[in-house]
C-alpha cells in the first residue's frame, strides 16, 4: 500500500497549505485594521469589522476546503499518522509568516518551532 500512503501524505500537505493560507488571510486583514481590544464588547465589534473585509471570506473558503480534505484523510489514514504528518503545518506557518507577513524571525523562534514539530511527531507516533 505504498501508493496509498503517498496519496494520504499529499492530502495532508494540501490541508496544511489550505489552513496556512486561511490563517494568512485572517492575519493580514487583522494587521491592516489596527484595532485595540480591551474588552469583550470590543472583541465582538472587532470580529464584525473583520467580517466586512472580503479577503477574510477567501480565508474561510480555504478553511472549509481544508476541513473537507481533512475528513477525507481521516477516512483513509489512522489518526496518529495523520496528526504526526500534520505537524508540518507549523513549518508552513513559520515560512509564510516570515516571507509574506514579514514577521521578524530569530534563531530562538526557529528552534522553538522545530522543537514543537519534533515533539508532536514523538507524541503522536509513540
Amino acid at each position: 500500500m505504498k501508493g496509498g500512503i503517498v496519496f494520504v501524505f499529499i492530502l495532508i500537505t494540501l490541508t496544511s497549505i489550505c489552513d496556512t493560507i486561511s490563517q494568512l488571510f485572517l492575519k493580514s486583514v487583522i494587521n491592516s485594521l489596527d484595532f485595540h481590544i480591551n474588552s469583550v464588547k470590543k472583541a465582538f465589534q472587532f470580529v464584525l469589522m473583520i467580517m466586512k473585509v472580503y479577503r477574510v471570506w477567501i480565508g474561510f473558503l480555504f478553511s472549509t476546503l481544508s476541513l473537507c480534505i481533512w475528513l477525507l484523510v481521516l477516512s483513509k489514514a489512522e489518526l496518529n499518522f495523520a496528526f504526526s504528518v500534520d505537524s508540518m503545518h507549523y513549518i508552513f506557518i513559520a515560512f509564510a509568516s516570515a516571507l509574506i507577513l514579514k514577521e521578524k524571525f530569530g534563531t530562538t523562534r526557529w528552534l522553538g518551532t522545530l522543537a514543537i514539530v519534533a515533539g508532536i511527531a514523538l507524541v503522536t507516533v509513540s
Partner: protein
Amino acid sequence: MFKKSRVTFKILFFLVSVDALETVTQLCFKKSVIGHMGFQVDSLTNAALFLKYAVLSPYLWFGLTSVILTFVIWSTILSKIDLSVAVPVCSFSYVFIPLASMFFFKEQINFLRWSGIVSILIGVILVSLSSGHKEGAS
C-alpha cells in the same frame, strides 16, 4: 507606531482557551452524529437526511457556538501577537491531552511520549520568549 507583541499571561490564557474550546467543538460535533454512525451517506437524499439529523441535535448548535467563540478569541489573539508565535504556542493541546488522559483515565505515558511532551514544552517556551523584544518600526 507602538505595537505590543509580547506573550503575556493574559494572551497565554486566551491561547489555552482556544485549545480547550476546539476540543469542546470536536466533542460536540462527534456527539451530534454519534447516534447515526452506521448511516450510509451514499446518495444525495441520504446526505440530506443525515444533515437533517445533525441539525436537529442540540450538540451541533453547541458546537457551532463554540466555533464562533473560538473565532472571536483567536482574532483577539492575532490582533496582539505574531501569527508565527500564536500558532506554535497553540500546540499546547498535544501536552494537555496526554497529561489529562494520564490523570483522569490512568493511561500510561511511555518514554517516547514523555520526550515528545518535554520537546513541545521547550519549543513553546522558546517561541514565547522570542516574541519578547519589541518589533522594529514597520
